[in-house]
């Protein structure tokens, strides 16, 4: 529980919260005094958070509002303010209301991309969680060489993701990559890992799972280690078998860790830019394009750059994630989880 700032209780017992503003000379004495007191009580807490509040307001808040505004216009590369040589050309884009949203939601492109993004997120998170849980359970036992295994298994997390993605691209290379050379050595046909829509989808999921398992494993291992060993002993004395111990001790014990990592990794995977961008650029065609990479493509890879549509997709992604997080939290709360 947070320590109250010294005279918090006084402020609470005092008059109802004063109207906003410092009431310079115009207000009655009472609210002015309360606001002064609130200021004197909390000034150092506010001073401590001030730098971050300023940073968030200036470099996140302002761009966010501007992004939302752009999504309500028809801004693109041709009509935004720009300077060519010494000439400054003013912006000529117009406010178009919710047209972009209507267009995105009624068109096939957004819904199709959203469908694949959901499939991608769900399969990546599910597989990653399953593998992470299995490995964490094994590593939580007494087993020779445990720390060596642990170190090796963590390696994919330690290497910067863009490097690993290039390593995978190297292995996936259709003509001369390692995987296809092994297949041809075994007398099998080459697989177009990144050039066939279906195979490419599986290939990007595999890479993302490879990248994500170490984090999941480490987080769950931390959770497992916080479960008291006596619980297992007691259960075993009572004759619980391995599955029952897992089901009734391990799973509830991992609850708080897993709800957090599942939420985090869902958000991260939904927005996982580097894997798709560096591995396939969304190709072949648009087969592996997720919402984030497609939005990026609208503003930086097509001509003319379509800033409005890109921002629209960005805002829609944000709304989807926020709805998801709120829904997730509500489900947890219904199940009695305090979060």
């Amino acid at each position, binding site marked *: 529980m947070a*320590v*109250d*700032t010294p005279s*918090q209780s006084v402020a609470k017992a005092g008059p109802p919260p004063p109207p906003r503003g410092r009431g310079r000379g115009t207000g009655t004495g009472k609210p002015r005094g309360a606001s002064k007191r*609130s200021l004197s009580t909390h000034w*150092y*807490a506010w001073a401590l*958070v001030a*730098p*971050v*509040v300023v*940073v*968030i307001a200036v*470099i*996140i808040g302002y*761009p966010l509002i501007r*992004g939302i505004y*752009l999504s309500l216009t028809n801004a693109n590369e041709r009509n935004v303010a720009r300077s060519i040589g010494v000439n400054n050309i003013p912006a000529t884009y117009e406010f178009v209301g919710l047209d972009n949203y209507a267009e995105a939601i009624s068109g096939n492109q957004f819904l199709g991309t959203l469908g694949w993004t959901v499939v991608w997120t769900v399969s990546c998170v599910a597989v990653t969680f399953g593998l992470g849980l299995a*490995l964490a359970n*094994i590593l939580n*036992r007494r*087993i*020779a060489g445990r720390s060596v*295994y642990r*170190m*090796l*298994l*963590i*390696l994919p997390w*330690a*290497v*910067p993701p*863009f*490097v690993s993605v*290039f*390593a*995978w691209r*190297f292995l996936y*290379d259709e003509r001369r990559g*390692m995987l296809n*050379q092994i297949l041809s050595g075994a007398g099998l046909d080459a697989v177009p890992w990144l050039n066939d829509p279906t195979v490419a989808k599986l290939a990007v999921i595999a890479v993302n799972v*490879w990248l994500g*398992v170490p984090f999941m494993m*480490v*987080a769950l291992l931390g*959770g497992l280690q916080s479960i008291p060993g006596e619980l*297992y*002993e007691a259960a075993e004395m009572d004759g619980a078998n391995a599955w029952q111990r897992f089901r009734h001790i391990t799973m509830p014990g991992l609850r708080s860790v897993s709800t957090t990592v599942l939420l985090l990794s869902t958000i991260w995977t939904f927005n996982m*830019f*580097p894997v798709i961008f*560096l591995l396939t650029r969304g190709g072949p065609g648009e087969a592996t394009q997720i*919402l984030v990479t497609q939005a*990026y493509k609208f503003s*930086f890879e097509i001509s003319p750059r379509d800033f409005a549509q*890109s*921002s629209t997709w*960005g805002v829609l992604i*944000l709304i989807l994630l926020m709805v998801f*997080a709120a829904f997730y939290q509500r489900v947890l709360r219904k199940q009695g989880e305090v*979060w």
Partner: protein
Amino acid sequence: MTTTTPTARPVNAPVRGRRSPLASAGLHLTLIVASAIAVFPVLWVLLTSLKPAKYATTTDFFKETTLENYTNLLNDTPFLSWFWNSLLVAVLTTLVGVFISATTGYAVSRFRFPGKRGLMWTLLITQMFPVAVLIVPIYNIMGSLGLLNRSAGLVITYLTIAVPFCAWMMKGFFDTIPREIDESGYVDGLTPFGTFWRLILPLAKPGIAVTAFYSFITAWGEVAYASAFMVGDENLTLAGGLQKFVNQYGAQWGPMSAASVLIAVPAALVFLFAQRHLVTGMSAGAVKG
């Protein structure tokens, strides 16, 4: 002391310590396969970097081991300037990010003040922001400030990622430091700032180190903003630079593998060194939320 249960197990022996040899072999086999999958792509890049570039795609593990990829990379490509750019951006992001977030982490950990709940939610929600919402407005703003293609622009941009994250992590660490220490500071007549600066901050050093390391790695590996904002061979960061080696016309796997090794080795070493703290940090910062 030993009760004779049907399995004749001493009561206080570790319960999960006993397995049949077959089960042990199965566990080891699983771990070996998993470790091999985890290590192989990285190991393969390392081995490739030691082969002459023309043999980059052979399946032999070793072939005429040489360092020529490395010498070519350092002499004939702007790798060193990319490396320097990345280092500069990552270090500055980390310093500024940790510095301004530490106080916030402390405030939300210790005090109850109007706006705290809103602030916590903002910090959490900003971590959900997709690159896609912010990238265009930030791109335009940086363009109008003349900061595109400059390290400073990228540092400012990365603060949007680093600050909410660092503040959230730091709060977790401060939560683990007992409040009695603050109280003893007040009793000894320190101001809240003095308590924070002289007592709490030194105790939070491991937490600061982990947070710093984490934001360093994030900035070091960021792709989207770096690809969009930086152009021209000299200004790229590593994430952009590596893309130069692989394009739709083909790939120069030789220099790319050497570059990958040089990028990954320092990061991986520090990471493996810091990972124990990282686990505690993650659970303190994320789980307790």
